[in-house]
């Protein structure tokens, strides 16, 4: 597959946007400016970027607790995202969802999810709608290695295959579920070994290589659009920060060496090097991208900080589609 420079630079931009958003979120969390839990995507940028560059706004994705990266990659804007993390009313979710539920339907992002595995069945539903309307769209479910041990993943994978739905299963295998290494929780090494049990093709890709991920996604999408059903893509990747937050809090569950080895394979820097080596772009080109996006982030932080918190009268709004005025039993 020959990718144009536009596509390559677009994927780079997505990765840098994620990196900058996540680093900023990490800093803000450490400054106690972000309430709640924060699961950073740093290190895994190539996966969301490579996948989402193959999708349109009409294609849907579902995500996980580690969801900002996916939303940024799908086209989410910094301002309403940062505002959401800061629990402001200008956030995508009006401050009601936060990091673990961040979503934006305009770009087809069906939500981060606080329940491991729960996004996959929802992606199956979106994929069902696509097939039902025969509109050529596909739904992609992002999920971690650990989540493939939960029932919802299994049911979703099987149902998508049984109904031959246009669904892409994207496993981000970062070798840990929270603080527990993969080999404690499964007897296999490659998640892709599960694909045959559902009757779909499975492929392992280098999760630090945005191009490899993109190519695999393009192929899987073509297959889905043809009506040949789902595929499983396993991206071998790594998160550079802690399970949640930034620091490991002194509780070591992986060695510094291991982290260091993976950091050497930083998906953004290695991509830039390859592009420069191949004379597809210059250092200056990349510096310009970083500079531009850094300014965007600063602006977004400012926007979020300046935004108001939601007011208490919003608590009962949007529970139901037509918020019940006063079902006497229900209202407080």
């Amino acid at each position, binding site marked *: 597959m020959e990718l144009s420079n536009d596509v390559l630079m677009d994927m780079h931009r997505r990765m840098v946007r994620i990196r900058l958003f996540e680093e900023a979120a990490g800093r803000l969390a450490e400054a106690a400016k972000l309430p709640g839990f924060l699961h950073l995507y740093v290190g895994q940028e190539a996966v969301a970027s490579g996948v989402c560059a193959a999708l349109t706004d009409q294609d849907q994705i579902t995500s996980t607790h580690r969801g900002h990266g996916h939303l940024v990659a799908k086209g989410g804007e910094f301002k309403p995202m940062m505002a959401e993390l800061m629990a402001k009313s200008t956030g995508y979710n009006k*401050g009601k969802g936060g990091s673990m539920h961040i979503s934006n339907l305009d770009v087809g992002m069906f939500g981060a999810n606080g*329940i491991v595995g729960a996004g996959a069945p929802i992606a199956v539903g979106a994929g069902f709608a696509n097939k039902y309307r025969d509109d050529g769209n596909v739904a992609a479910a992002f999920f971690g290695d650990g989540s493939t041990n939960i029932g919802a993943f299994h049911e979703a994978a099987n149902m998508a295959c049984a*109904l031959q739905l246009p669904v892409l299963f994207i496993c981000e295998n970062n070798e840990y579920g929270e603080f527990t290494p993969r080999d404690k929780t499964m007897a296999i090494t490659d998640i892709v070994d599960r694909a045959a049990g559902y009757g779909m093709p499975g492929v392992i890709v280098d999760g630090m290589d945005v191009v490899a991920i993109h190519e695999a996604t393009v192929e899987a999408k073509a297959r889905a659009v043809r009506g040949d059903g789902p595929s499983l893509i396993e991206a071998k990747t790594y998160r550079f920060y802690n399970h949640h937050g930034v620091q490991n809090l002194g509780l070591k569950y992986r060695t510094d060496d291991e982290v260091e080895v993976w950091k050497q394979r930083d998906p953004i820097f290695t991509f830039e090097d390859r592009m420069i080596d191949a004379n597809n772009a210059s250092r200056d080109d990349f510096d310009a991208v970083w500079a531009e996006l850094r300014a965007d982030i600063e602006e977004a932080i400012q926007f979020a900080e300046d935004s108001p918190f939601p007011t208490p009268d919003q608590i009962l709004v949007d*529970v139901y589609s037509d918020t019940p005025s006063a079902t006497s039993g229900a209202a407080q």
Partner: protein
Amino acid sequence: MSRKIAYVQAFNEAVRQEMQANDDVFCAGEDIGAFGGVFQSYAGLQKEFGERRVVDTPISEQAIIGLGVGAAVAGLRPIVDIMFMDFIAVAFDQIINQAAKLKYMFGGSATVPMTITTGGGGGLSAAAQHSQSLEALICHIPGLKVVYPSNPYDMKGLMTSCIRENNPTIMIKHKRLLGMQGDVPEEPYAIPLGKANILREGTDVTVVSWAKMANDSVDVADQLASEGISVEVIDPRTMQPLDTETIVASVKKTNRVIVVHEAVRFAGLGAEVAAQIQEEAFDYLDAPVGRVAAPFSPVPFSPVLEAHYQPSPDRITEAIRSVLARPGA
């Protein structure tokens, strides 16, 4: 035009007519396609609408609900079936943490117009895992609406409303009412969710009851009428949101009330009804709000035990007499 059809046919007709009216409506569930569902609720629908719109699924309740959630957010109007109400437990996360909360968590940007259908209630010697009345659990979850009709007319009108509703609703069919016959108009009609129905007017005591128990309560009321006791029977029909207004108005008139349900008493919906009544009609009550419900055990298999487990007309009668026995204010 009205004619007599069964409760399950009323359900089926509501689904069929809404499917005819709106291509966005589809059904999915176990054995609902070629077979028409184990209760025949979906009989004939796949023949009429094809496999695209009436979908047999794997035995995967989590994915069945997820299918509904995802398709609903994507713009369709799914009807997804969980065969027995007891099995909602298998899909409970998708029901209470996903379907119910998604709109709110998204700050209102999504709508989830899906209907979950299921069969509830006991009386078939189906034992502990196929007989439960779990409505209290789902009524405790903000974001859901819960409907439990007691007769064919309500079934059709309420099911139609569920399908048209822009929120996740759970339509519980009582397994012992499937064959119940009643007058049902042929043309489509909707009964608004959240409106109770006064099944029988009376002045001495109010009985709040739903599904099969509502019918049993009416029988008891008929019985007691011959003794000169006038019983008002209210069927909330929708359990969430609950039409407290109608219930409270009745209690203010009768000053005495019991709640009757098949579920176990402890933390059953009768507790909420009782709590609300004493909150809103404290000064009108001449006796504590009575509750008739199942004892605190799983549903026993043996029909001999189950007959004593389920609230019987005798126990309903006794409870009515007991609240009447108290001297008035």
